[in-house]
């Protein structure tokens, strides 16, 4: 187990390096001067030079990369050009908000998708099976930002049941344990849950159908096992893969929440990315993407390790 863990972590290191290289390169493929958004149009050459030195843009690329990585390892992602505040602080605050949404959405999606997929796989070609297949196709085909808009139209604008935007009353962007904050989470989380729901339903259906067709199930039935007894074996065999899919979906939602956050004005990483892009705040853009990608890579490792703990066969492949 330890050897597997070490191998898995070691394999991740070059990927982490590559990922940070891509994040760094993003700023430099951007056309125009990275400082153009803060400098007044009539800035003197002297001021321009000072700022360039301050942000380190006057050094060579390898030098800039080394400095950036060195600081990032110490938790310093530089300062936002637009606000002057440390990028790390801003990103972490936003990540917490996005994580809250993504975890709730994954939970809803996994529960409903798993339920649908399970019933569909158990009763192949039944009405529920057809319904689950339809749900899976709908889930991956729907433009989720549009679904969010439709939910706002129905539940906020027409029925007036739920708030349309924001994370809390009066533009509050931090979590509090009260009813108003819960209400604000409902629509974005439900919108977000549609994607993992479809994918989980499809995966679980295929898994359950495959397990049920295997010889050991026939063997169990021949030994006289029925109903719940068989069910228990199916769950045990389907769980590792289903959980792995769930973990990956959480990662995708974390990185892909920008569209949904825009629809609901949710103060998370998507919102931060959006403002970074439109204010051309390159350190903030770089930092946000780096943190999200790191989250995704680490989550992948965690998922693999958990899966190998549940199912030792994974280690051998």
């Amino acid at each position, binding site marked *: 187990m330890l050897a597997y863990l070490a191998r898995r972590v070691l394999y991740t290191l070059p990927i982490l390096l590559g990922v940070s290289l891509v994040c760094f390169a*993003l700023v430099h493929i951007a056309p125009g001067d990275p400082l153009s958004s803060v400098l007044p149009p009539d800035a003197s050459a002297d001021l321009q030079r000072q700022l360039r030195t301050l942000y380190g843009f006057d050094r060579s690329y390898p030098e800039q990369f080394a400095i950036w990585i060195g600081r990032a390892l110490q938790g310093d992602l530089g300062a936002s050009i637009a606000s002057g505040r440390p990028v790390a602080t801003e990103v972490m605050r936003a990540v917490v908000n996005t994580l809250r949404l993504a975890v709730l959405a994954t939970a809803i999606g996994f529960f409903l998708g798993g339920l649908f997929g399970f019933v569909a796989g158990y009763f192949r070609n039944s009405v529920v099976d057809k319904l689950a297949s339809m749900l899976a*196709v709908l889930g991956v085909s729907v*433009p989720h930002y549009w679904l969010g*808009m439709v939910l706002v139209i129905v539940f906020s604008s027409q029925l007036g049941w739920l708030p349309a935007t924001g994370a809390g009353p009066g533009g509050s962007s931090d979590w509090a344990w009260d009813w108003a904050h819960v209400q604000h989470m409902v629509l974005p989380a439900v919108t977000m849950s549609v994607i993992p729901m479809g994918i989980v339903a499809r995966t679980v259906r295929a898994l359950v159908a495959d397990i049920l067709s295997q010889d050991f199930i026939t063997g169990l039935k021949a030994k006289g096992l029925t109903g719940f007894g068989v069910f228990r074996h199916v769950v045990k065999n389907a769980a590792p893969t289903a959980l792995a899919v769930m973990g990956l979906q959480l*990662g995708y939602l974390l990185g892909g929440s*920008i569209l949904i956050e825009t629809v609901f004005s949710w103060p998370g990483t998507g919102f931060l990315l959006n403002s970074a892009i439109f204010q051309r705040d390159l350190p903030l853009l770089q930092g946000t993407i780096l943190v999200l990608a790191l989250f995704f890579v680490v989550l992948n490792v965690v998922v693999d390790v958990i899966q190998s703990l549940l199912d030792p066969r994974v280690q051998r492949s």
Partner: protein
Amino acid sequence: MSAALEGSPALPVPAAAPSQATGYWTSVWRRLRRDPVAMGAAIVLLLFVLAAILAPYIAPADPYRSSMLRRLRPIGTAGYPLGTDELGRDMLSRLIFGARYSLLMGITPVALAFGIGGTIGIVAGFAGGRVNTAMMRTIDIFYAFPSVLLAVALSGALGAGFGNALLSLTIVFIPPIARIAESVTTQVRSRDYVEAARASGAGALTLLRVHVLGNVLGPIFVYSTSLISVSMILASGLSFLGLGVRPPEPEWGLMLNTLRTAIYVQPWVAALPGLMIFIVSISFNLLSDGLRSAMDVKQ
């Protein structure tokens, strides 16, 4: 199993060699034609393609002509069957013209990535060894970004615009296609008939052309078609964020964005462009599913 025989079970087997007409693609087409869901999806897509091509002839009005006097009319207004948008432009005409952008932005990045990613994957799979490792590890780096994040990051860095959005999406789809191509090619390369051909003196190029390409292109193609709907949703999403097509172009994602402020005035008019994206994307997915089972590709 002979595809020619399977394709025409009712006909008596001719004594002569079966004609060329009943080849692999013919039998795929026969099976696809018997799939009502896939054919329904294909017909819907065909209608959208026709609308896109014939847009200037069938659109009832100029999609760019605005009128401050006729803003945000509801669906069913005389002369404006689907209402008007926030600048008083005819929604029906804008939706018809919008099909051009959505189809283009759904298909182009996937087609380009199919060419580039497919080549990378096939070369890596066919070469094997260190070349394979080096190529696929590089691809893995891009795989470490969730696709939406990578698309937004790239187009955010490159700047808004139609061309940059296409470029970003192409880069997003190269890694997954390359991965599939690599795994399929690696499988085919170790089959007995490839070994036999190699043993009987076939060169690398002959092996690739005759034995590998014919067996790997199908699965890679089917996988790529399943990405078209993702590409469409992402492309419209980029425009929705203000990173893709720019105003005043009638692009569905952009229309959704500019109509967002109108959801309290004309909610159903505001929701129309998204409904179009939904219909086209679901049709692409259903057709791709049908194609997969018609070609008998296991994922």
